[in-house]
Each structure stands twice: as structure tokens, then as C-alpha cells.
């Protein structure tokens, strides 16, 4: 894995320049400027857009604001997909910056999972990690870790700390030669 460190760093630090615009039908007290942000490919929309939320809430009345959600060209964006995946699926052939529309009303219940707190994102992220380890190591590596290791993995992602994250993740990416490698290699295909 150490040989691949350059690749791991390139993947970790991948960014997508994005322009957030408030949906035109949202009721505002004054005009809302778009907000620009470099989004980490490996993270989740609702984890990295606190500043976006604050920016638009400044021009809105409290009663007009409920759960934030994002949309690209009419399609609600699934926050539980990594940002890089969302971009590749929806906008890879378009010019940068990626233009995302921000909504605070009419949450699309049939399309999107709710995300009322960071706990929801953490639970989702950890569930993905656990399922992957079920395939790689029959869950042995993830189960042998302590709660604090799980926390470190999550905090590494949340705070964009490569070293902190990989200190734990490298254990999940190890395969003892005597076991002939991973039991199964987990990957997901989207179309």
C-alpha cells in the first residue's frame, strides 16, 4: 500500500469546482448570490455544505427553511452517494464549474434519504465500510477494531485528514498472503 501512496493521495484530494445557486422559487428577503466551493470527491454533499447552507439562510426567513437538498438539472442529488460519483453520473461531460441548485422546501420524500444530522451520514458511511469488510475479510478486521478506531475513520473523512483516515483504513485494505488475498473484492457499479 505504501507504494500506492501517491495514488491514494491523488484520490483523497480530488476536488470538483462547484457553483451553488438557490432555487428561484425559494422565498428570499433579498437576492441570493451564488456560492462557489471546491467539493471533495470522496465526501458527501451534506457533510461539506454547511457554509452553503449558512450563506443562503442569511437571505431567507427562518420559517421558509426546512431540510436542505440539492438538485442538478431537475434531478435530486442523492447525498448518500460520494460527490465524485454524483458528478461522474450526472455532469461529467459538462463544463466546470458544476452547477448545483439548492432547495429548502418540498423535500422529495420518494427520491432522497433524509439527513437531519451528521450522525446519519456517519451511520451510512460506517455501514458501507462494514459491508465492504464483510466481503473482504468476513467482517473480521472491522469487528476486531475498537469503537475509537471506527470514530477515527469517520473523523478523518469528516475533517479531511488523510493520515488520520489511512492509519485505520490501511488495516481494512490489508490482505494476508496466506489467505490468498481478499475473500471478495467489493465494488459498486452505477449507471
Amino acid at each position, binding site marked *: 500500500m505504501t507504494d500506492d501512496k501517491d495514488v491514494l493521495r491523488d484520490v483523497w484530494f480530488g476536488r470538483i469546482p462547484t457553483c451553488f445557486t438557490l432555487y428561484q422559487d425559494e422565498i428570499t428577503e433579498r437576492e441570493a448570490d451564488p456560492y462557489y466551493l471546491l467539493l471533495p470527491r470522496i465526501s458527501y454533499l451534506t457533510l461539506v455544505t454547511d457554509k452553503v447552507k449558512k450563506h443562503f439562510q442569511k437571505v431567507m426567513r427562518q420559517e421558509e427553511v426546512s431540510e436542505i437538498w440539492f438538485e442538478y438539472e431537475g434531478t435530486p442529488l*442523492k447525498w*448518500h452517494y460520494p460527490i465524485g460519483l454524483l458528478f461522474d453520473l450526472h455532469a461529467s461531460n459538462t463544463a466546470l464549474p458544476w452547477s448545483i441548485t439548492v432547495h429548502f422546501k418540498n423535500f422529495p*420524500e*420518494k*427520491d*432522497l*434519504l*433524509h439527513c*437531519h444530522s451528521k*450522525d*446519519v451520514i*456517519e*451511520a*451510512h458511511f460506517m*455501514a458501507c465500510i*462494514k*459491508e465492504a469488510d*464483510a*466481503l473482504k475479510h*468476513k*467482517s473480521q478486521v*472491522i*469487528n476486531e*477494531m475498537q*469503537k475509537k478506531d*471506527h470514530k477515527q475513520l469517520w473523523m478523518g473523512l469528516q475533517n479531511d485528514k488523510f493520515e488520520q483516515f489511512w492509519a485505520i483504513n490501511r488495516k481494512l485494505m490489508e490482505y494476508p498472503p496466506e489467505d490468498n488475498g481478499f475473500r471478495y473484492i*467489493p465494488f459498486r457499479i452505477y449507471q
Partner: protein
Amino acid sequence: VSCSMAGEEGFFLEERRFKQHCEDLVKHSQQIGDGWEWRTSKDLGDGYLSKTHFQVRNRHIPPDLKEKNNDNTEQMLFAHVEEPWDDAQAAGAGGAEEVVRYEYHVLYSSSYQVPVLYFRACFLDGRPLTLDEIWGSVHASYQARLQEGPWDTITQQEHPILGQPFFVLHPCRTKEFISAVLSASQEHHRHTNFIILWLSTVGPVVGLNLPLSYAKLAPEQSTDADVA
């Protein structure tokens, strides 16, 4: 919180056997009118069990009394339709009675090699229940366990086939309490329908009950190789 799994000898179910046991469950369900059906996705080869039923929820009654079995539901529904104009009655001891439509799906998880219970719930006006409302309606006997680790027990996830938001009862917990029961039944070479065994154990946590007649079900002429 990590799932403890006592090695691979714990409960796991081959996909082929999963489908067979689901088929047996559906057959019995058709005989007793319990409403289970097998659905397949047009694009994928995968299929899943599905059942929809209605429950009356009453916020003022403690959770263990909230649950009505299917026989009573219709009676309850019509009893309240009869007296719509009586405000005193409506605001009385019954409290805010609401009908909730529950939809349950049983899918197979290739990663964990176990069945997984997905469900969604909405009021008659279409408003879906929130995660908090779902947690609140978990049967009283399971509330303690749920409080310990709500995020490890029931969360909202994307349905693997339909791609829509559903609530899921986590597979980790399945292995925990099913292993012991199953190893005992395997020792006695009992021909068990794993789906019925599993569903009768986890279903009640989220308001899903199996009538007792399912217990008499035995898989169709399985060979010893299947049971081993």
C-alpha cells in the same frame, strides 16, 4: 458498535435456498390469505418478498398496546368511520388514531448472506413516517436495545432494487440472535424454513407478525445435503 459474528459457522443462507424458502412462504400465505407475494425486477434477475398491510397507530396508548393484529384492523377502521361527527368521541380516550400503511420487503443480501427486512410506512394522506416516528413505534420489548444503538438497528437506506428510500433492520443484528436458534435446529436435523424462522423473530420488532400456522411449514422434500 461492531457486530459480533461468531465466525462463518454463524447463520448464513445460500441465495438459492433463500428463494426456495420464500416460495414456500408465499404458497402458505396464499392458502391463508396473509398477503405475501414474490416480486421480480424487470432489469435484474433479483426478486424479493413483499407485503402491504394497514395498522392503526394511537399516540396516546403505550407501544405494546398500539399493535393490532390484521383481523382487528378492518373492524377498527370501520368503527371510526361510523362516528365522524361526534367531536366528543373523537377527542376522547381513543386519542389521535391514525391509520398507517406499512409495506414490507424481504431481500437477500449477498454481502452478508442473510435475508434483510426493508419497510416503509406512510399515513393515508401519503405523508411518510419519519425515522423518529418509526423508532417510536418499535415494540416496547425492543425499545431498550434500540436506545442502546439506534443507528445500528433501524436506519433509512436506499432499496437495492427499487432505488427508493426505505427503512432497514440491520443484518448485523440478524446473525446475533439467529445463530443460536438455527444451530440447535440443525443439530436435530429439523427441516426449517429459515425465512419463516427469521421473519417471525425480527418482524415483530417493526410491527410485522406471522400467524402461527406458518410454524407447521416444512420445506418441500429437501435432501440431507440441503440441511447440512
